[in-house]
């Protein structure tokens, strides 16, 4: 990378328009966006789903996904217009001069090939270096990205490597041809917070080391502020605001940007200690296993009525398993679940209707949690029919009531199919379905993690309102500490199937923490461009 070229414009997209096809009709999804990127610069693209950020990121490679097309504007990359370039010349650019890092490394690696084979493919196929050289280069890069066992890891298959490591291996693969530009498409979204930090720092280091220009796409402003020199905020295929990172974080110009920044400022009032009051639900020394592999070890927790207990932990910590035990989907191997002091049958099939309707569940993925072949009317109506015996007009009236309660217009939504709803609307329908059963306790299993941040916030507010109005108790399962901060009365921290810490929110969130809680808390990115540097320094000091 010649020093004199630094600062020169590498990529310039002008008036970029992209269309997508649905129902045989082309709709514009990116409406004329201008992007400028200089050599060695990292540009953050941020926005919610549907903002067109990935589409723009891919357009930087002259690529449009199936069902999309670049319909207007120019994409000048180092003097070549990618929008007009031939397939062959595009192919020669891709992988060698512009590389891509995908969101889910587990999915983006070919499961049938070893990592190093996939690494070597681009350099060898582009004729940049022979196989042997590429291999030793790979090992070098693996080392720089702090992958364990850099000599051996390349000879594993993707499924034999953990998610965080895969993401780093993919970054190495993108670096293989020493491209001028790398497009990072939400590279850490699928990772746990603690892993996310490692990957973020690895990516940042390597990009800085090679002085590569990068486009960093994410929906998380806190993350992008660690990575990018400059940020573009996108919404519905339009540019909302553009600026230097620090400037934008400190002084956002547009309301939308401010909203994004203000996400999770919502806080629930602090609740009092319930004391010795009889809990609504008590989990007593429960252990459980899937087949022969144990996943829960001696877990106990109480949930009091009208209160929210947040169960927090990373993936694999057993928090969802705990929910399955409570709902009776997974009978525990030891221990029991008491409802108002009386033991619940371990198997949900043995529970009575009365026991069932009090305990409802809302799932993480609203897409799969409601039947895509039923209309909203029957989705919400069925529990009414089933538990309360409502039929016909009574039922419809109640469905309408519930829809109003979840802030959806009954006339508009009652006859829709789930496919005609947005993610947030679907989640609201799920909530309404749970409410229809007139429950006392709702288990919310990561209910906001599949949603955009603003939408998630709305859902949290809705849940809070419902709790206030209907006196519900929530068991709130999440990996997101921001959510915990927002809604919890009590917190249960789980790690590898065990409860490591539990108590009132302020007790848990106020130091001194348990070691793991500390790790979790410190790993949540903050809206401060220096946060990552400080954190890493801090950790380095501690370990030193």
């Amino acid at each position: 990378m010649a020093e004199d070229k630094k600062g020169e414009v590498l990529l310039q997209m002008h008036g970029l328009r992209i269309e997508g096809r649905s129902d045989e009709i082309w709709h514009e999804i990116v409406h004329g966006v201008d992007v400028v990127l200089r050599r060695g610069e990292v540009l953050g693209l941020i926005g919610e789903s549907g903002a067109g950020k990935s589409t723009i990121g891919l357009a930087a490679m002259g690529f449009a996904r199936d069902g999309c097309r670049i319909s207007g504007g120019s994409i000048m990359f180092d003097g070549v217009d990618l929008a007009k370039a031939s397939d062959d010349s595009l192919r020669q650019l891709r992988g060698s001069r512009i590389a891509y890092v995908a969101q889910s490394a587990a999915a983006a690696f070919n499961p049938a090939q070893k990592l190093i084979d996939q690494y070597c493919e681009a350099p060898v196929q582009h004729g940049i270096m022979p196989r042997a050289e590429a291999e030793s280069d790979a090992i070098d890069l693996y080392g720089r990205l702090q992958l364990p066992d850099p000599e051996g890891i390349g000879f594993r298959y993707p499924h034999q490597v953990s998610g965080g490591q895969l993401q780093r291996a993919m970054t190495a693969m993108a670096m293989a041809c020493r491209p001028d530009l790398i497009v990072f498409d939400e590279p850490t979204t699928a990772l746990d917070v603690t892993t996310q930090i490692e990957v973020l720092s690895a990516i940042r280091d390597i990009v800085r080391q090679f002085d590569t220009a990068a486009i960093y796409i994410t929906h998380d402003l806190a993350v992008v502020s660690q990575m990018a020199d400059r940020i573009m905020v996108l919404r519905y295929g339009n540019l909302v605001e553009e600026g230097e990172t620090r400037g934008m974080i400190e002084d956002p110009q547009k309301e939308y940007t401010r909203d994004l920044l203000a996400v999770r400022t919502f806080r629930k009032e602090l609740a009092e200690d319930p004391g010795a009051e009889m809990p609504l639900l008590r989990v007593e020394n429960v252990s459980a296993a899937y087949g022969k592999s144990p996943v829960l070890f001696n877990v106990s927790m109480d949930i009091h009525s009208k209160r929210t207990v947040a169960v927090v932990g990373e993936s694999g910590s057993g928090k969802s398993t705990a929910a399955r035990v409570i709902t009776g989907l997974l009978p525990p191997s030891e221990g029991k679940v008491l409802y108002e002091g009386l033991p619940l049958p371990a198997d949900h099939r043995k529970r009575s209707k009365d026991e069932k309707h009090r305990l409802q569940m809302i799932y993480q993925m609203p897409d799969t949690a409601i039947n895509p072949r039923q209309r909203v009317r029957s989705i919400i109506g069925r529990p009414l029919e089933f538990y309360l015996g409502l039929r016909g007009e009574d039922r419809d009236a109640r469905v309408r009531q519930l829809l109003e309660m979840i802030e959806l217009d009954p006339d508009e939504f009652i006859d829709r199919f789930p496919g005609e709803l947005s993610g947030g609307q679907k989640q609201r329908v799920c909530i309404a379905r749970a409410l229809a059963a007139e429950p006392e306790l709702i288990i919310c299993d990561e209910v906001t993690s599949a949603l955009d941040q603003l939408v998630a916030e709305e859902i949290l507010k809705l849940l809070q309102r419902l709790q206030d109005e209907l006196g519900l108790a929530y068991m709130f399962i999440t990996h997101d500490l921001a959510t915990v901060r927002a809604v919890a009365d009590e917190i249960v921290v789980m790690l590898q199937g065990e409860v490591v810490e539990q108590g009132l929110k302020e007790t848990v969130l106020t130091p001194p923490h348990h070691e793991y809680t500390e790790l979790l808390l410190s790993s949540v990115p903050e809206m401060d461009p220096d946060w990552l540097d400080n954190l890493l320094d801090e950790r380095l000091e501690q370990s030193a």
Partner: protein
Amino acid sequence: MTMPLTGNTFGGQASPWFSRIAVAAVHFFLLVLFLQNVAADFWSAIPGFIFIHAYSIVVLAYWSSLDRTAAGDTVIVTLTLEFVLIALLFWDRFSAWPWSTLFGLALVQFCAFAAVRYWKDLRQAPRSAWFGLIVILVYVMVAATAPIIAPFSETEIVGSEYDVWSNKNLLGTDNLGRDMFTRLIYGGRNTVGIAFITTLLAFVVGGLAGILAAAMRGWVDQVLGRLVDILMAIPSFILARLILTIVGTSVPSLILVIALLDATRVFRLARAVSMNVVVLEFVEAASLRGEGLWWLIKSEILPNILPPLVAEFGLRFCFVFLFLSGLSFLGLGIQPPTADWGSMVRDNATLITYGDITPLLPAGAIALLTIGVNFVVDWFLHKASGLKD
């Protein structure tokens, strides 16, 4: 990436002008049949004529005023009502119709209604799918109305054997001097009818068992799975031969035996796709709610595995069709003198040696339908897979 959603893919509303024309066409078709066959004289058919048209107008007016939710139900209600009313009006003559013709007419009308209902999807269908749909529709109509449109009766000997094509015998005569055109029409009716019923039965049995196995898991799954494995381990042709020899080759036993054999294949597919659905959370939610097995199958699983099952139905139908012809070839299929395409090919197969194309006709008819069905299935699968993203 979410596109603005303009409507559910399977609940699209028909354009009103088309629906009017289509329903009117169906009614007109029915009426022509009436005039030709049911009404003893022209004048007594007039009230029926007027009634049906007035009725159509009312139905359509009502229909277009409704939102699309009710449209599906309306179709069924209309269908039933209309048949009941026709039956009441023309009871004495109506009862003289063969049941299969009634069934066939119902099918034709159902097709028309379906076409109206899914017009929006149809409009987007590629040309190959249109071709397939038209082929299927023509076959269904021909099969349904065979006794009405065929110039002669099924077994009637109308000339000398192997007559050439003429005005009297459109496609000449067959090996016994029966009218080839008539035999083709009846052959279609018999073969298509039997294959259709067989496939339907196979799907009801195999599909239900498959869903049941997926929904219940455990020993039910094991037992059914093993049973199917064993049945599949015996080549179907051989098992069919054995069973047909034991029970005799009557049409009901043909249907039952082939349906049983085919059900094993359907079972596998139904089980596999249901397995994908039962792990989804809405099924879990329903079973947590305490829903019974039947509800789970009927409301939660079945609607979601329908697209692959429908596609498979098309393919299975073709296989059953070919299987039947194969059995006919070995003399175990539909027995003479009932016309069926398989044995028609066989009966006239020696002609091929002499370069005569007569045997091509039934074989061509088989092939055309198979291709048509496959085109539609392809399109359907394409659409169904498009639903996922």
